[in-house]
């Protein structure tokens, strides 16, 4: 007959055995059960710590609720977890704005950086670089800026995203060749480009077989010139060379009646229409080019893109020609805009000519070492690219859980209960 103490002892041993079996069963179940998602609310939790935990414990399924687009490091970490066999689902506690910013070198002199920004959802966006604020779009939208200097990366920030970009290349800009007859249009075109920072070579016809030249002159090829500006039809002798240059990747601007000259007719985006006069006095108005006369681009080719029209008539058109670009500019007295326009006309005339040349210029890109932080030009698009589209998650995500800790505790519990049961048995003399 067992004493009361002995019975209690044996009951305890059975209980420890049961506990050990239960812990082993739990461990077995945890090993073979279907994956259960773990998640984190980044608004209230620490996503970085959760990522570290998930990585160490090889969490098979993860879900994240963002309140803003994650930074590239977090996004790439999640992408790596997903690629490593896990399942990552995400959603947003509020709509993340689809936004993008891109900074790239403009094919213009003086290191101009062109920044393009677009943002949806009507969210206010501030644009800044390392030196401070650049611009603000109170209701989002799109904007293009040309910045003379940019300190570090350009950052566009809204309530739900921060997009960054920087110009990763610089352009190689060779001189521009200006050809035409001596006259105010050639003089002021050369002046506008030079004042804007372009290196200009020119060959200006003054008399039969007499040209006034400046700058580096040589054969017309992309190794020597970024663009060729032909202002009239006096350069017929060089037209075949110019056409070859365009096909090889060069940029050509045909001004006024220039497409009438020899091989240039074949590369022009359209034909030269009958001359039209400008509107008297309009060069000093808000639409100064309506005051300029010129030769409209008539019958634009199927591959031509009309860039500017006036009263339904194309005044500027462009086309691609093999590797190069050709632009036909109907205006032939833009100098009047500069001389007789409003207070800002000289600067506007310079900028306009520079943009035309930049639009066609052959400007090879050279990567540059920056040492800047990784770019994140379109945070939402990159997030979708990395993790797929957002998936609705019912209810709030669970609090951060630690599967490894539970497993560890179950193991300790198993060992402790088995050890306790064995010790008890041996102390009472049983095997």
């Amino acid at each position: 007959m067992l004493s009361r103490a002995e019975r209690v002892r044996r009951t305890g041993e059975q209980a420890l055995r049961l506990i050990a079996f239960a812990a082993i069963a739990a461990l077995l179940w945890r090993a073979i059960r279907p994956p259960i998602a773990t998640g984190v609310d980044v608004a209230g939790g620490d996503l970085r710590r959760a990522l570290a935990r998930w990585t160490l414990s090889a969490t098979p399924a993860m879900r994240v609720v963002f309140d803003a687009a994650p930074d590239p490091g977090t996004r790439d970490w999640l992408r790596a977890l997903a690629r490593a066999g896990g399942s990552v689902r995400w959603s947003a506690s509020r709509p993340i704005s689809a936004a993008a910013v891109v900074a790239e070198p403009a094919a213009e002199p003086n290191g101009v950086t062109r920044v393009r920004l677009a943002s949806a959802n009507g969210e206010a966006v501030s644009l800044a670089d390392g030196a401070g604020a650049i611009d603000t779009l109170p209701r989002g939208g799109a904007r293009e800026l040309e910045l003379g200097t940019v300190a570090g990366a350009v950052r566009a920030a809204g309530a739900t995203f921060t997009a960054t970009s920087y110009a990763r290349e610089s352009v190689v800009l060779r001189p521009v060749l200006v050809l035409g007859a001596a006259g105010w249009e050639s003089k002021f075109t050369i002046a506008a480009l030079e004042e804007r920072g372009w290196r200009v070579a020119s060959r200006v016809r003054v008399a039969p077989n007499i040209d006034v030249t400046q700058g580096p002159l040589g054969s017309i090829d992309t190794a020597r010139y970024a663009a060729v500006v032909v202002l009239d039809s006096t350069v017929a002798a060089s037209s075949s060379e110019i056409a070859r240059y365009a096909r090889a990747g060069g940029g050509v601007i045909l001004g006024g009646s220039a497409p009438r000259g020899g091989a240039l007719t074949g590369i022009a985006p359209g034909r030269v229409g009958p001359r039209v006069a400008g509107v008297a006095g309009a060069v000093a108005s808000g639409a100064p080019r309506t005051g300029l006369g010129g030769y409209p681009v008539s019958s634009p080719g199927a591959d031509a893109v009309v860039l500017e029209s006036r009263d339904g008539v194309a005044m500027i058109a462009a086309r691609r020609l093999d590797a190069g670009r050709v632009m036909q500019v109907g205006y032939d007295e833009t100098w009047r805009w500069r001389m007789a326009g409003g207070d800002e006309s000289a600067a506007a005339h310079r900028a306009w000519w520079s943009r035309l040349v930049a639009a066609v210029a052959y400007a090879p890109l050279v990567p540059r070492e920056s040492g800047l932080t990784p770019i994140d030009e379109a945070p939402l698009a990159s997030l979708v690219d990395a993790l797929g589209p957002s998936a609705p998650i019912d209810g709030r995500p669970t609090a951060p859980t630690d599967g490894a800790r539970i497993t560890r505790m179950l193991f300790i519990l198993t060992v402790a209960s088995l050890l306790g049961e064995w010790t008890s048995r041996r102390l009472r003399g049983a095997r």
Partner: protein
Amino acid sequence: MNSPHLSLPRSRFPLPGEFVFATAQYESGDWDSAPLVPANLIDSLARYTSLPVAPTGAIVALASDDLFRFPLVFLTGHLPVRFTDVERTNLRRFADRGGMLFVDDHNHDIDGAFHKTAVEELTRAVGPLSQLPNTHPIYSAFFKFPDGPPNTSHELNGWGDNLVHSHLLAAMRGNRIAVLYSNKDYSSEWGYHPDNKRFLAIDNTKFGVNIIVYALTR
């Protein structure tokens, strides 16, 4: 002198691509002291170049907005020059936008009234004048003048200030001439009927062609 006409009739506006030689009309002084110079330079330009040049010149008031239709303007006179505020403002805008004013001292007298006042006024309107190097591209824009500005018979004969001026003066905008100033009295040197060129061993208006070609190409 009061200017009765401050704006040109439209018929005198330059045609597209056409060069019109313009003479500046200003309120003070005698702006029309060299009436034969335009015709003579137009004749030379037509002789030596293929530039489309208007057969007659134009007269444009410095105070008029029409000034901006003529990016090269010739100004001369004997008498003291005092620009009005409008003339001064227009001249500054003209230079800033790329126009070129060619000023010739028709007086070229000792301590001349035109020279002193014109230089003072031009300095106020456009900026200080300084010596133009004799290697400047204007001396090789069409004809070659390796020694700088050609001398005039008035200088060589010892008339006026009894000096042979070795340099022209200029006010610059960037690397371009905004005001070209001469003490050499080209207004007298070139002030004859173009038909009389045939009596000259060397055409003395060639430097005038250089000035116009420079203005049209640089």
